[in-house]
């Protein structure tokens, strides 16, 4: 791709400045501990509904999370980190993918059947959000992106760990980048925004919300796109292809030789 560098006034600058300003304002507002009308599902009766959600979230928190993350999500030494400021995005990611609540300490939490449903996850998120703010997943359609642009971004930023076909891959010493095949739009968005575990953070300056949606569009499009060349044998490249030629090809042809040269 040929792209000349853009000097002086890059087209990003304005957007970035606005973005930074908005974040600054948001941070100040939240730091003051005042819960304002930025939360998900804003309606006329915002404050009341949200606090209801947060209250429900607090109940769930106190039954299922408090033992590791402590009272008021302040964290417990050697058991669980503080959740103040992680934001609803992180909570939603961890809870809807079943990674939290964790049954035991492991090198890396892996995807399980979620313990809570989506509404409960949102309630938990609202509660954690109310404690210290943090990143949130925007509402609405997250696939309003450009597939081709998303592909470029995916290959530069994501494929190194998750693989060209989003099947995941190994990291050092037993850690791994999970497959994106079971991931929902909101989970992918939240993962980019919050950088769970060893995943690097892709904040809104690294990948703008639009770019994140491009990537989501690419990934979901790839997943829903039936492979045109037949069975994709995992689409993990030459490893399974080599296995297939021996296990199926050579085996079948060996049987053929046995038949051809066998007694008639």
């Amino acid at each position, binding site marked *: 791709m040929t792209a000349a560098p853009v000097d002086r006034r890059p087209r990003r600058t304005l957007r970035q400045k606005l973005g930074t300003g908005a974040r600054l304002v948001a941070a100040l507002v939240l730091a003051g501990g005042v819960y304002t009308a930025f939360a998900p599902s804003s309606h006329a009766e915002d404050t009341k509904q949200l606090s209801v959600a947060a209250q429900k979230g607090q109940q769930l928190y106190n039954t299922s999370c408090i033992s590791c993350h402590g009272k008021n999500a302040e964290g417990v030494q050697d058991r669980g980190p503080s959740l103040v400021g992680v934001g609803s995005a992180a909570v939603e990611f961890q809870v809807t993918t079943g990674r939290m609540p964790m049954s035991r300490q492991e090198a890396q939490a892996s995807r399980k059947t979620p313990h809570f449903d989506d509404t409960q996850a949102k309630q938990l998120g609202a509660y954690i959000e109310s404690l210290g703010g943090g990143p949130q997943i925007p509402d609405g359609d997250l696939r309003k992106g450009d597939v081709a642009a998303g592909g470029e971004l995916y290959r530069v930023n994501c494929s190194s760990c998750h693989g060209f076909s989003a099947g995941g891959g190994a990291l050092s010493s037993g850690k791994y980048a999970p497959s994106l095949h079971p991931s929902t739009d909101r989970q992918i968005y939240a993962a980019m925004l919050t950088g769970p575990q060893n995943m690097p953070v892709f904040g809104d300056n690294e990948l703008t919300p639009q770019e994140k949606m491009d990537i989501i569009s690419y990934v979901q499009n790839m997943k829903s796109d039936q492979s045109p060349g037949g069975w994709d044998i995992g689409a993990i490249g030459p490893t399974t292809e080599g296995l297939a030629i021996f296990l199926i090809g050579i085996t079948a*042809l060996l049987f053929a030789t046995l038949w051809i040269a066998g007694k008639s």
Partner: protein
Amino acid sequence: MKRPKFDPKQAPGAVADWADQRLAGASPLRKLFNKVFPDHWSFMLGEIALYSFIILLLTGTFLAFFFTPSSAEVVYHGSYVPLRGISMSQAYASALNISFDVRGGLVLRQIHHWSALLFMAAIVVHMLRIFFTGAFRRPREMNWMVGFLLFWLGFLEGFAGYSLPDDALSGTGLRIADAIMLSIPVIGTWVSFAIFGGEFPGGDRIFSLLYIGHVFLIPGIILGLIALHLALLVKQKHTQWPGPGRTEHNVVGHRMFPGFAAKGGGFFMIVFGVLALFGGLIQINPIWLFGPYKAAVVSSASQPDWYVMFLDGSTRLMPPWEIRIHLFNHGYTVPPIFWPTVVLPGVLVTLGLLYPFLEQRFMRDRAHHNLLQRPRDVPTRTGLGAMAVTFFVVLTLSGGNDVIADKFDISLNAMTWAGRIGLLVLPPLAYYLAYRIALGLQQHDREVLAHGVETGIIKRLPNGAFVEVHQPLAAPDEHGHTELPYRGWVVPKKMNRIGAIGPAIKGFFVPVEQPEEPREVEAEEQREEITSGRR
């Protein structure tokens, strides 16, 4: 002479007459018809490689109609939506066009790639058969060397083909190839700059070289060597297993036409059919997912095709040992990648090419051999072969150790260490096990020849001991001995193999008619006659 009326029935004869008047081909042609080939399943493995190669030529020619080996930048506007508007090299764009905008292009591309994998797999399996049965011994050392070179040429040809589409995997592979070239002491940078025409990736030069190499030079050499391989086979005649009537001085089997040729032609169709099924039903090398090559792009689980994977594995297992030399106030480097990717293949090629001569030297066997040996009869060779196979398999698995680590939840670092230790420990272990198993099998054969087949009948002796009754395989001679000499061929080990129990009913759904008894016996007698006559 009066011009005869055209009679279609006479036409073949007339053509034959016309040709023989000019070529005097009657007797060489008949000699070809009458050439005898032995029949055994293990003799057909090389055919798989030959047929895959023919299919490679056919499908490759088709692909060449549409492929453009150029690094010129274009913007893609083809059918594949997720890449539209992306700039890429013309090579990659044309590979995408073959996949999406040429009718039937994808199936032929996939058949081509599967054929390449099968070609190499069949070469390896065929080579193992030759090795373990001693078919490379005098007078066939030359043909072993030709075949061995064919493996390495196939290796190069495959790598060039893998690199041509200029997708992100190709580019990553080429970049590693560049690192390998750079690692050669003294001349490394010169080699790399000559191949790439500058610092990697260098532009069009590499595509010109890869393309002419992949479609002309290497296949040309392969074709020439295959011709030589077959010519030597015809001249030296096929080896055969020992057995009734088979000696070092004859070939027992079918005449080439029609039986043997029909089986060969049929097998070609089966190989082609299997590859067509593969090409249509199993996706291979989905370049559209990989995207165009960019120096900053990579994917987890970046692997070469299976026959290159052992070098990738050796590179992964290599400890970080770099040699620094200081000469005349300048430091020189021998990078660690030099050993597993330049030295190791060099050693493997040399050892492989010279193996027949090494074996002759160490086993002190310089005789002419046309009869094959069963692996169990030469435990040392079998052990060495098992060792080599284990070495290769450990390296190949290590070439995919990240995929194994990911899919089976094993630590990647543990996989690397397992590979390092395995590479040192497992081959000698494989040698020992293969050696002992070969000896054990041989011993069992000897025992059956000496004492007969186990009947499953337990007899109690007067002293109370239980013994199993053995059925001797031969009638007692004048001294009452029933021992048969060891001939290195299959020994019957079960009673129904020597006719004590009738064969099971043949046929899957309906019993197959048994041939009439008297004829069967007659045939058996006739066969016995040959046997005794030839011995």
